[in-house]
């Protein structure tokens, strides 16, 4: 029996209603195609990224995975920073099918401003034109380049935090698994914000929120189908595509995971944190009551959004030793 979903936080619900019409609860392949044609999302204006001269901004093409095209990294470096600064390696969201390396950059820049950190945001190839493993291999290639060139960017290769929201959170979790298994240089921590990590799409929260809020079960199916095609939900899906499928979650960098209680991804995010603990790992989990998917972006001023943002900084501060 489908249980009633948890109510949205009232302030978030009013904000969602006010911007309703931009995104349906259930998107379709057709809607996503049109959204891609019509819109460029994220911060387009470099002046806005520079934040009154606090950052220098450049876009750099670096080698992609073997036999694949170059990838583009958006690099924001703190002006006048002294010594080797922390690095935030950012992977954008957009359901595996939308967006570019300027989506979600505001949050990463906020942290970078707090800690005088370098931000590197990776552009990866999108599904369905480029199914798994193209997106995650692009993210991995960009990470390897960042490790090798961190010093050149004024960054500290031993203090790289990998971070992303939604599909970017899923790709970030997958990156942590790839780095572990390929014995690459470990990141200091992983920030998984409302991460998209389970292609099976059948948790109680996915079922509860079907047809409601933002990025419901139907939208999630569109995203995973694009990434995995017929393999989606089957027995052979790799943990590098859907990290919830990974059999072993031991020996991962410390994780910060947050999610809303009223979104599709609630249960997979909570389960991922639990499995990290069960495997002897380190994770900090925040479940924001009444939060829908991406609530903080829709209503950045709301009390719950302020609290969610504020919770991340102390974790980063402890992790970075700043």
């Amino acid at each position, binding site marked *: 029996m489908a249980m009633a979903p948890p109510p949205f936080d009232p*302030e978030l619900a009013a904000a969602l209603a006010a*911007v309703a019409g931009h995104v349906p609860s259930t998107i379709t392949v057709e809607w996503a195609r049109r959204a891609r044609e019509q*819109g460029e999302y994220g911060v387009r204006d470099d002046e806005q990224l520079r934040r009154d001269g606090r950052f220098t901004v450049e876009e750099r093409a670096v080698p992609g995975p073997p036999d694949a095209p170059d990838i583009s990294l958006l690099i924001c470096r703190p002006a006048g920073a002294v010594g080797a600064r922390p690095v935030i390696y950012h992977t954008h969201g957009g359901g595996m099918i939308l*967006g570019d390396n300027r989506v979600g950059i505001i949050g990463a820049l906020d942290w970078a401003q707090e800690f005088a950190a370098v931000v590197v945001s990776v552009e990866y190839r999108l599904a369905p034109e480029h199914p798994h493993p193209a997106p995650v291999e692009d993210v991995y290639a960009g990470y390897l380049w960042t490790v090798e060139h961190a010093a050149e960017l004024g960054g500290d290769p031993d203090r790289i935090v990998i971070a992303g929201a939604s599909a970017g959170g899923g790709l970030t979790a997958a990156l942590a698994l790839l780095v572990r298994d390929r014995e690459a240089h470990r990141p200091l921590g992983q920030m998984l914000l409302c991460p998209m990590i389970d292609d099976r799409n059948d948790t109680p929260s996915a079922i509860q929120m079907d047809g409601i809020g933002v990025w419901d079960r139907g939208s999630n199916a569109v995203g995973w189908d694009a990434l995995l095609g017929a393999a989606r939900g089957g027995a052979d899906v790799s943990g590098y595509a859907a990290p919830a499928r990974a059999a072993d979650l031991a020996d991962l960098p410390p994780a910060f995971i947050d999610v809303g209680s009223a979104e599709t991804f609630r249960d997979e995010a909570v389960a991922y944190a639990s499995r990290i603990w069960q495997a002897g790992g380190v994770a900090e989990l925040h479940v924001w009551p009444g939060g829908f998917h991406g609530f903080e*972006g829709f209503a*950045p*001023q*709301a*009390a719950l959004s*302020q609290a969610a943002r504020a919770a991340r900084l102390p974790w980063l501060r402890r992790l970075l030793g700043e």
Partner: protein
Amino acid sequence: MEELAGRLTALDPDAGAAVRVIAYFDRLAESRVGLEVLVRGAAVLAGCPARLVDEDRRVHVRVEPDGTRRDTTAPPDATWPREPLAPDGTGTSAALWLERDTDPNVVDAVILERAAGAIRQVLDRTRGRARAEDPALLETLLDASADERARLTAAKRLGLDTADPAALFRAVAIRGGRPRVVPAAAALPAGRLGVGPAVSVLELPRSSSAARTALRFTAEGTPQDPGSSIVYADELGDLALLERLVAPGSEPTPDMRALRKAIADAPWMLATLHAVATTVSLRAAAAEMNVHHSTLQHRIAHAESLLGWSLRTPHGLWRLHLALVLRHLAATTHPE
């Protein structure tokens, strides 16, 4: 997803803006959210700080357009657009402001109106109903000739705690507004006030009549109208008897005429005579007037010559004080 969907932000004054504002606050009101959320809604949708102040109920909420709470005790700017939270003439200055320094936006009025409407409901629900809202109930409560049961019912409906027989209340007469009734220990409303004695619910007509008397002894507290803006009937004592002797506009007595002549002679005269009559020594009067002791001596000598009596004897000071009070009571620019 957020960049794909747009975000809640300051509204451009287009055709749909008012509809969205109304929908936003209606939804918040339905969910019974608190004051901060409503003030934040006003700030976010207007794109400037919003401020709620209700001194009577000790409520101060100020929110920046980025959603952060940042209260202040600085007074609101008189030029900012505002929406009062109580009807005019209830003697309360409670209001919601938009700290808009540029020309008001056409959406501002809708934001203020809808946010203030929702805020009124929250204040009534959480901070007790604003008193003096229903003039008919108040009239009954303060009418000694009204039936006792009717008065008790009116008290209950005005939100007064009538269950405790020891509970005491005061009637407060307000210049330019309807009277109010407040619990004896509660803060007074803003404005120029005559405050009645603390009494039980059924004695409120007496407190009200004393409050009206006390109000006639209040002044603006300016050099043109020196004196206290709040007068307690309890502290007035038998001076209250004078109120019955002198109606506004009544024929001046010889001392009042002499006083009028003196006041017309110099701009400093009224404030100086008031200070001399109401302080315990000439030194204190000089300090209050912020003039040198010798200047005050010269002024007093001049006043004595105009008045025709000495201001250096207890009798002469008492005569001055009485003339000042009678003049004040006879003035026609008075509250009623």
